[in-house]
């Protein structure tokens, strides 16, 4: 337990009539206060187990917990106690779950943890970075899953883009034939079609970024309401935008070049006939 114990309520919670006697104070999180209509000054009955007698507490504060992806999706409510009060409620005096230690400046946490672990019985010391890495393993898995889904989506959109660009340029067979017949060089025709493909890919990319921004905002709005949290579920970073735009431009230009090459290498009269 940290200086203020944190208890995920497994049992029940009832607001009761205000009392003037000195009661132990607790802080409750805003979601819980909203859900049960509690405010500062109210008294509540708390018990760790349904078959144990309840104790009366005074709501001294309503707080907004820091958004934490590890707990937000569980939807559990939290109450903060003064440590001795929670120990008394749980009937577990002189016991803690965790102790946070701040080292002196310049002392590496690894060496402190190592030194603490040498004579250790009943506890194990870890540097905060290690705990953070371990506790984020779940999110690392989710992140890998998202990346895999992202790769599949990119393949699907790349094929889609290939089809469209190929058709778009092939549609221009007649134009290519006319340009070639009036004496415009192959290189100029090629550049013109590649430029057109680049323009289409660029406009499509801009629209795609806009669509992604709208979809991301919608996702955040829905999930923030659903889980009553301020967490960011969808984050459109500059790197992601650059990757998406870069990839679509690259594909667009490559496919445009491929299709344009087919047009300029064919004989103008053959193109004319096929276009007709």
């Amino acid at each position, binding site marked *: 337990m940290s200086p203020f114990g944190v208890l995920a309520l497994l049992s029940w919670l009832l607001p009761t009539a205000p009392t003037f006697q000195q009661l132990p104070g607790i802080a409750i999180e805003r979601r819980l206060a909203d859900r049960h209509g509690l405010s500062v000054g109210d008294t509540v009955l708390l018990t760790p187990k349904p078959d144990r007698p309840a104790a009366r507490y005074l709501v001294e504060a309503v707080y907004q917990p820091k958004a934490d992806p590890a707990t937000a999706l569980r939807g559990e409510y939290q109450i903060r106690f003064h440590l001795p009060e929670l120990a008394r409620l749980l009937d577990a005096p002189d016991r803690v779950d965790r102790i946070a230690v701040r080292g002196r400046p310049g002392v590496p946490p690894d060496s402190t943890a190592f030194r603490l672990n040498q004579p250790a*019985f009943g506890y194990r010391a870890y540097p905060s970075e290690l705990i953070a890495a371990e506790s984020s393993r779940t999110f690392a898995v989710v992140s890998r*899953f998202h990346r895999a889904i992202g790769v599949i989506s990119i393949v699907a959109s790349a094929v*889609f883009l290939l089809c469209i660009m*190929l058709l778009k340029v092939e*549609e221009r067979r007649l134009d290519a034939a006319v340009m070639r017949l009036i004496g415009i060089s192959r290189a100029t025709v090629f550049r013109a079609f590649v430029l057109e493909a680049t323009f289409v890919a660029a406009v499509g990319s801009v629209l795609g970024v806009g669509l992604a921004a709208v979809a991301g905002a919608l996702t955040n709005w829905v999930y923030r309401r659903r889980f009553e949290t301020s967490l960011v579920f969808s984050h459109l970073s500059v790197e992601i935008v650059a990757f998406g735009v870069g990839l679509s431009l690259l594909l667009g230009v490559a496919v445009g070049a491929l299709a344009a090459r087919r047009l300029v290498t064919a004989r103008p009269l053959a193109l004319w006939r096929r276009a007709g």
Partner: protein
Amino acid sequence: MTWALVVRSLVRHPVRTLLVIAGIAVAAALLLDMVMLAGGMERSFSRMLLSRGYQIRLSPKGTLPFDSEAMIPAITPILEDLRDDPDIEQVGPVLATSLHVSVGDSLLTVVGYGVDPAAQGLYELESGTDLAPGDSTGLVVSEPAAAAAGWRLGDTVRLQGRLDPQSARAAVERVVVVRGVVRFLYDARGQRSVGADFRLVQSLGRQPDVDPASMVMVKVRADDRVDAVAERIAAAHRTVEVNSVAALVVQFRSRLVYFQQLSLILATISLVVGVLLVGTILTITVSERIGEFAVLRGIGVRRARIVRLVMAEGAVLTGVGAIGGVVLGLVTARYLDAILTSFPGLPAAISFFVPERTAIARAAIAVFVAGVAASGYPAWLAARAPIAETLRADAE
């Protein structure tokens, strides 16, 4: 004639046709994966819970089985009461606690399960012999535990319990013999677990005087009586949480709502991509061949047949794409499943992508129907082309 024309039209542009089929296949693969993801977790979870036929779980009040370290106190009278119920076939108490064994000069910590060998729904025997009813000196071990401790069948093991945190000495020790290697159904991948007689593990665990159990598994004689029996147990024992497997699946579903929503969103996107792909390609193809359709109409081919011709083209594209998508989807599902099942602490028996015939058929049919529907607009364009104007424009 229709099918011959369709095949000829598709073969005329092989690159285009292959790209469209590839696009549909990827969209269908994503759709299939998402259909599997949406229902697979629940089916897998339900299958895991029912694998030994126990339909009801009793756990400490306010908790789900193995969800916390809480225990049900005074379990013996509850067990006796359950065994007296004529609707109940078997009652299997389970106690989970930390146990320790000396391996060389270090201490290995394992998860110890106390079970009633006559009614256990916790593990399946892989090699050796099972614990016999009343066997208070036998031990079954998981493969990872056997590998970590170097145990073999017939080895003698000193199980230690209630380790003093200050001196690292065990308050109690029991000598047991390894009878078999088992697969614990609810264990995470690589979890080191052992199983022994319920009373033996109680004596090694915390607070043996309160007669604790972590969970009780109940097998009801008739499946249609499960809910009634669960309600009856809950009414008779208000200090325990009573859940049927169906109720546990509902709880599980609420925890995995994120994946269900994600699968719904991505499945919708993949369907939209498939529809757009087929619709766009066929619309452009129809525009290119509008003169051909006008000629067909001019020589007396009915509009309905033109519509059938274009829609058959869409059907062939989506049909072939859907078949490719099923194959691709099954391959990618294995890869995605390997990622998600690496969640820390997840039972090894849980699978997120369960390839079932209904899921595969549903995804393939959805893609096919969507693709055929998407070819409706280009088919309508082809059928309504004015014959004289189109032919004149084509001639010019």
